[in-house]
């Protein structure tokens, strides 16, 4: 059951807390992926604190809605969201990437409560989402499956294999969310391997496409609500985002894909994100 349904201003506050946790985790671990975590924060916050039907006491509840972060390197945002949601103590966040931790460098469904799929090798989580949606239909369950993919990840051929399957089976219990932040590991997507026209590609593959500002909480919430009402066709939300969102010197900078801040940068980032509660 949904025990919490935060309002838009509350969601915005929570997203700030999650952003601070992301910076803190990556600084403590001295490794990890801040850019793609920060670009996805507002959407994960809305999903877990408003949209998803979950039971934090029973993370394996078989009727729960599923979420898969197919761009698994951005798991700090997932871990911080799940901790703030109450799946485990926030103290665990300090153990990211350490030996014997619940929180692996890429998300592990057998180790982290609330993580619905093991991810890290790009272009696989989306297919797993297709599988979960097909299973829900066969099992006559009404849970919804949300999958977030990266715009760099879209370059993997397997993403398009999953897209074809989603259209073939008209998976309206599956919603893909594209974190379109314009960057991948090496640099800007446009330089490495252009993917435009993105919306047209998805439409051509038979998907219902909605484009939004991925940092506007009001728009996020109304679009996620709307996605649930569309029947007979799978939906993809193309979220235009800023990699590193919320930390000025990380925003739209290729170097902040997979790098930890130093002490000075950490202080500045935390200041920009507001003092912790």
């Amino acid at each position, binding site marked *: 059951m949904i025990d919490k349904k935060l309002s838009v201003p509350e969601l915005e506050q929570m997203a700030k807390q999650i952003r601070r946790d992301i910076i803190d985790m990556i600084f403590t*671990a001295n*490794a990890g992926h801040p850019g793609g975590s920060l670009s996805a924060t507002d959407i994960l916050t809305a999903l877990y604190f408003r949209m998803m039907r979950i039971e934090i006491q029973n993370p394996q509840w078989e009727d729960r809605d599923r979420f898969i972060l197919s761009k*698994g390197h951005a798991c700090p945002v997932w871990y911080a969201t799940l901790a703030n949601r109450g799946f485990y103590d926030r103290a665990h966040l300090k153990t990211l*990437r*350490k*030996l*014997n*931790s619940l*929180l*692996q*460098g*890429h998300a*592990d469904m057998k180790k982290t409560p609330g993580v619905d799929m*093991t*991810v*890290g*090798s*790009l*272009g696989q989580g989306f297919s797993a989402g297709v599988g979960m949606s097909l299973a829900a239909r066969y099992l006559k369950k009404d849970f919804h499956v949300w999958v977030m993919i990266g715009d*760099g*990840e879209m*370059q*993997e*051929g397997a993403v398009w294999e999953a897209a074809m399957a989603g259209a073939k089976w008209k998976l309206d219990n599956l919603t893909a969310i594209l974190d379109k932040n314009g960057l*991948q*590991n*090496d*640099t800007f*997507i446009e330089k*490495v*391997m252009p993917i435009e026209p993105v919306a047209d590609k998805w439409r051509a593959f038979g998907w219902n496409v909605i484009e939004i500002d991925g940092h506007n909480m009001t728009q996020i919430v109304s679009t996620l609500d709307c996605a649930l009402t569309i029947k007979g066709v799978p939906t993809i939300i193309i979220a235009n985002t800023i990699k590193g969102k919320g930390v000025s010197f990380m925003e739209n900078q*290729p170097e902040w894909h*997979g790098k930890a801040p130093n002490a000075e940068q950490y202080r500045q980032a935390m200041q920009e994100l507001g003092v912790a509660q």
Partner: protein
Amino acid sequence: MTINPSRYHQLLPEVVQMLDAPDFFTRTKSIATRFSYAEAVLELAERNSRIVVLDADVSKSINTNKFADKYPDREFNFGIAEQNMMAAAAGMATTGLIPFASTYAVFASLRALDQVRNSIHYPHLNVKIAASHSGITPGPDGVTHQAQEDLSIMRSLATSTVIATADAPSTKLATYAAADWDGPVYLSFTRDPVPVLFDINYPFQIGKMVLLRDGNDATIIANRDIVAHALVAAEKLAQEGFDIRVIDCHTLKPLDVETILQAARETGAIVTAENNIIFGGLGSAVAETLVENYPIPMQRIGVQDTFAESGPYLQVIDKYGLTSPHIVRAVKRVIERKKSGR
């Protein structure tokens, strides 16, 4: 007891001196071998215009972005599309180009394996597969990025050549040698820094093992990043009165059968040590050789039937049984078996 440097070969003198230091791995000069590959391929490009580099959105992580900066028309970044990159490399090789296709070892040996087998190895096309983050050398990234079976997989492909060098200079030499080799070569590199053991005069030759320490009580045959741990283990054992031979098996395939059999005859006991699962890698290759030619007691150090986890590189490989204390125990065990004839 003091270290006897005359027992050691090929190693830098300062490395030999430090082998008994408890902080050997933090004190030695260390370099991630992925960067040595990137340097070597850049040098090669000057000499041979047919050499091109293919990337799959990890050029920043391997340093082949420097190649792209210097030779923008000779570097091809395929984005996050390893399968496309490998089959495209095969296509390029049909025209006489020598493509170095660079990605992480998990993706080279697993994601694009079908392309690597059917489009590269089967037609025996001259593609060099440059695989960084090999074995469990990416610690913190966790299991999805740890290529704990890359050597087993690559070794199982017919006609493959599989190289797993121990340090930075030998990695450069392997990269030069791969460029001259006719046919596909799998080169594997460490993600984390590993001690620089040799200088650039190291006698690297594809298919030829290198003797690093004399000894007749038992032999340790190691590869990749575990060579350094084998040396530390051998020195520990020397302090306890055991005289252990150490061999660097940088080429897993073609295997230097002659050197293995010589070690078997002269030392009567062998331990293999590798940062790779115990199925199908160095341990298996040596065991197959011994069983068919000269059966003697043997022990294998390697990742057991399990996936590892995230953690700092040295802590992870210690927890999963690949470091010198584990090797020391295996050597004592194999010597015990040799003595008791079991």
